[in-house]
Structures are given as structure tokens and as C-alpha cells.
């Protein structure tokens, strides 16, 4: 009924005693997320929002049987926190933190790959499975309603915009995954499509992309060959000039590569309908489903 996160996921929050960790662990709890433990080195024995805090992931996992981690640790320490989660076999590892050095990201991604662990992000709003009332991240839960559409996106608020549109149009979501706005992220769009393909409850996909890189082109190529259910696309940054970083570290047209045009062309070639405006996504889905 979902990918990566379901009702059995037992969540650990790394950096829970920080302002972000405290605020969002509370929001997650309110939404319904099964948070079983928090970690802040040196603050073991405390509690945050009623969640017990441990000094290490090892201790937290042993005591509370956590299965997944959400990381709010500041950028200089976030890579280390992710490796700690990976070493302790938490899966998925959701790396909310922004501004992590790319070299740290690469090490984290490959350490996770070597162990078969999925890293979501960094610089992601996280992942949400409305049907299980589990959100591992910072998204406003109420804009996502339960349903059969898998949603993946490189951006946060744009995803909320589209999800809210879907909810208004009564098109629900199986799982929504924020892939992250950095150039190097763990879970790629292609891998996300693969996961949704294996989920029998997901009947259609929404792929929200943006300028920079060619993750969307790769996903489109994969979809063309491997994915038979309807897919709707949206690309942000169609009017962005080359050479400028549009907020996200990954959203930049380098030379002539990474343009919205190229992505839309690739999507169209794969039979993906690309929405012109965010509000079109729900409309097209309603036509297709």
C-alpha cells in the first residue's frame, strides 16, 4: 500500500533536541508518525515531546527497536549522523538537512548503497505515506490525502502546492517522496519509479522535476521502457536563465544541459503528460484515472 514507509515503520529522530528536531518531531507525532526514539549525543536520558532521547543511534535502536531515521542535525555534522544511521542499519534514512558538503553526501550515498539502504535527500522535505498516517519529514501532513498516486519531487512547497491541488480534486497519494534539492541525493527519480512499480497499490505517478542535471530525463527513459501506468510530469524553471542557481543547489542550467525544455521533451517522448501549471497536475490525473 506504499513504498519505503508504512504502518510498521518505527522512527528515530537524530538531532531531536535542536529547535528543528523538537518542532518537527511534535508535528510528526500530531500527524500520527510512530516516533520511538530521539538521539542527541550528550543528552541521553532526557525526553522531547515525550520521546526518550539517547546518546547514540546504537543505544536508541537497541532500546526502542527503531527501523528508520529522520535527520535534523546541522550540516557540518549531518554526514556523520547519516553514517551512524547507516552503520546501525536504519532504513530509510531521511536526511532533511540542507547545505551538506557534496563530498560528505557522496560518501553517505555510497556507504548506504553498499548496505542496500535507501537515503532520502539530503535537502528534502521527507517522505509521507498518508494511508499509514506516517510522515518522516517536515511537510504539512494535511495537504496529502490517501490514494493511489505515487508522487516524487525535487522540491518542497511546490510538492505541497501540487498535493493540495490533488487533495482538492480528490486524487489521493500512496506515498510522496521528496527526492531533495541538492545535485547529489540518495534515492534518485529512477529508483523511486522502480519502487513505485513494485507497489501494487500505486496506480499512477507524478514526477515533479526542475532544471539542472538529467534525473528527469533518466526517469523518463526508464518509464518509457519499464513503467506501464499513467505518469504526469511537471518541470519548474522553464524561464530560468542559464548559469544561475535557482535556490536549490541542484537547480542550475550548466551550459546547455539541464534545461526544462530537454526534460519536457524527454518526458513527452516517454508518453508522460507534462502539466503547464501546478494546478494542471490534478486535472490531468483525474482524466487519466
Amino acid at each position, binding site marked *: 500500500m506504499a513504498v519505503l514507509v508504512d504502518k510498521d515503520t518505527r522512527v528515530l529522530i537524530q538531532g531531536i533536541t535542536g529547535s528543528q528536531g523538537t518542532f518537527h518531531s511534535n508535528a510528526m507525532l500530531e500527524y500520527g508518525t510512530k516516533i520511538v526514539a530521539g538521539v542527541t549525543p550528550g543528552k541521553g536520558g532526557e525526553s522531547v515531546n515525550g520521546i526518550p532521547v539517547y546518546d547514540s543511534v546504537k543505544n536508541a535502536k537497541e532500546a526502542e527497536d527503531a527501523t528508520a531515521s529522520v535527520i535534523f542535525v546541522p550540516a557540518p555534522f549531518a554526514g556523520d549522523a547519516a553514517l551512524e544511521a547507516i552503520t546501525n542499519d536504519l532504513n530509510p534514512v531521511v536526511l532533511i538537512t540542507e547545505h551538506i558538503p557534496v563530498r560528505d553526501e557522496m560518501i553517505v550515498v*555510497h556507504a548506504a548503497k553498499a548496505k542496500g539502504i535507501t537515503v532520502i535527500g539530503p535537502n528534502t522535505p521527507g517522505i509521507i505515506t498518508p494511508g499509514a498516517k506516517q510522515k518522516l519529514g517536515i511537510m504539512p501532513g494535511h*495537504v496529502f490525502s490517501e490514494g493511489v498516486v505515487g508522487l516524487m519531487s525535487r522540491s518542497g*512547497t511546490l510538492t505541497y502546492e501540487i498535493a493540495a491541488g490533488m487533495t482538492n480534486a480528490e486524487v489521493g497519494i500512496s506515498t510522496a517522496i521528496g527526492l531533495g534539492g541538492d545535485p547529489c541525493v540518495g534515492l534518485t527519480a529512477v529508483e523511486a519509479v522502480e519502487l513505485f512499480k513494485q507497489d501494487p497499490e500505486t496506480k499512477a505517478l507524478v514526477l515533479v522535476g526542475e532544471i539542472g542535471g538529467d534525473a528527469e530525463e533518466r526517469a523518463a527513459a526508464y518509464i518509457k521502457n519499464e513503467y506501464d501506468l499513467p505518469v504526469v510530469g511537471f518541470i519548474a524553471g522553464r524561464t530560468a536563465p542559464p548559469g544561475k542557481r535557482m535556490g536549490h543547489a541542484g*537547480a542550475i542550467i550548466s551550459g546547455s544541459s539541464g534545461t526544462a525544455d530537454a526534460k519536457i521533451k524527454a518526458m513527452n517522448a516517454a508518453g508522460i503528460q507534462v502539466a503547464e501549471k501546478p494546478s494542471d497536475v490534478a486535472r490531468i490525473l483525474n482524466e487519466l484515472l
Partner: protein
Amino acid sequence: MKLFEHEAKEIFRAFGMPTPPGGVARTSEEAKKRAEEVGKPVVVKAQVLSGKRGKAGGVKFADTPDDAARHAEEILAMRINDLPVEAVLIEEKLDIQQEIYVGVTVDRNARKYVMIGSSAGGMSIEELAEESPELIIKHHVDPFLGFRAFEARNMAIAMGFKGKNINRLGSFFIKLWQIVTKYDVELSEINPLILTKDGRFLAADARLNIDDNALYRHKDIIENLHREPAEMNERELKATAEGMAYVELDGDIACICNGAGLTMATLDAVALYGGQASTFLDLGGGSDKERVEKGIEIALQYDKVKAILVNIMGGITRCDDVANGIVAVRDDQGIDVPLVIRMVGTNEKEGQDILTKAGIPFLKTMEEAAAKVVELVKEVK
């Protein structure tokens, strides 16, 4: 953070990579002196953080120190890509046998560094990729083992070099890798790396970008540079200091939103309804009243702005905070351009009440808002 050519070359030399003899000049007199020191025909190169300076006339050859001074004077008076040229680099003009490309960047898909080499340097790697992709040699660096000397030699071999040149060229790759790991480089290019007629390899140009997110680990570099990390105008500096993403464009509508993707989509929507954005301003997540005020203030300082579109999708960001920020700017200093607001999500109702009380209209969808702001800007013009 981008380094100037001469700054990058200083690092190159510290790692043992030879560069052509020469030095930096900030006046034509200095340029003359540098050329005299070189004692041979020189090249005078604009120091700007922008490619394509050659096409803009920022690179000139000079046979005599007087010529060098003349060229320097011209170039120092130029603006390239809207940036002033504050220095030139005077270097010996090399006797070229071959122009080579040596570079390194991050491959997003592989999530690895990729070393790139080509026996056909001089042109941009993008052009080369289109014209002669078979001449581009790539090696993805193992994230755990790093880049090894034998892999550097294999690149030189694959690029067609033989004999002693295998080790000589290979050493540039190795040193480049050492610089990458020491300084968290995200992109570096030596283009061209020159093989001279007398058989020497020299880094004739240098590009070096350090990962902004890793700058906190390299304070020493910034200190040594004696300058700001990036060339930014006053508004960009302010926005950066506030942690906002701010990009100036050629249109006239400032888009102030929360989230990079939403801001880009808002720019696109403006274009869709026939308008053109002047400003990409992502306030970031969880913006409070003060932040919204600051954002609008910065946007208003850009003289191209003829209207403002605020588009907020409330998540962590609360609509009442945003509304209070907007009202505060209007009351404290006035907003003298048309203002269109769209605001949904967390505390939407409270935010709308605040706007209504203050007599500021708002819309419910971003499409309506985009259409409206384009209409208003047309009226202003």
C-alpha cells in the same frame, strides 16, 4: 565559491603544478612592470568570474611591455558579463604544441567525482562533447579508495600520450585530485593545459570552484584571498546574509515565495500569462514576520521591479506571519508598486483576516495571482 584565475593558479602552484611566468596587475603601470619581468611576449587576461571572456575581448596578446600596458588599460575599463574587470593577469605567451583539457567535477548521477581529460583542449567541454565526444576521457573516482596515480596515468594513456608524457600529464590529474580533496572543490578545469613546443606542460588557464557548503572547513583560503567569497551586488549580499535565495532577472515582476521549486514555478506562471520576472526570491522555510519584511525590502531595492507577487504555500511558514510582515512593510515605509498576494496553507484564515483588515487584497490560486500581477504591470507601464 568561484576563484579568479590568478587565485586558482596560486593554489595550483602550491601543489606543484607549473603555470606560465607572470603576475597580476591592477593598473596599466603594473601591467607594464609585469610584462617587463616576463621579458617576452605576453598575454593580458581579464580576471573575471565568468567564462567567455575571450569572446568579450578580455584576452589580448602583447609583444612589448608598452603594448601590454595599453591592452591592460583597455581591459581594466571593460565590464564582462556585467561585472567590472578589477585586475588582469600578465603571463608569458607560450609556444604551443598542443592544447589539452584537464578537469574534475561532480557527476550527479554517479554521485561521484569524475576526472575528465581530452587531448583537444582550448574549447569548452560542452562544445567538445558535441563536436568530438570520442576525445573526452572520463574516470569516475571511487568514493572510498579515491583517485590513484595509476588511474591518472591511464587517463594520460587514453588521451593518447606516450613515454615520459604519461607521468608528466598524469601528475596534473593527481595534483588536481589532491586539491579537490584538500579544498572540497566542486569543479576545476585547466583549459587549456599547454604542451609547449619544447615539451613542457603548463596550466595556462585555471578554474576552481569550491563547494559553498564546505567553506566552513576552509577559512584559511578565504583569509588568504583578502576579498569577499563571491562577487555580489548589495541586494544579493543582503539576501545571502539573511539566508534567502535571491536571483536578479531581466523582467519587472518580483516573485517572493517560499521554497525554490515554488518560486521557479511562480516565475514560470508569470511568463505563461505574458509577464516577465525581475526577481527570484525564495524566503526559505519557516519564515516569520521579520523575514518577510526583509525580503520585500530587498526586492524593492532593485530598480527594475514594477510589481510584486507574493506567493506563499504555508507549511512551516505561517500565513499570519507573512500577512503581518506585508502589512508592516506597507505601513512603515510604503510599497509604491502594485502588490499581488496569494497565500494558502497553515493559518490561512488568520492571514487572510489580517490582510482584509489592512485593506490588502489577496487571491486563492497562484494562476489567478500570476495573471493579476501581469495585468497590473501592464497598467503601470
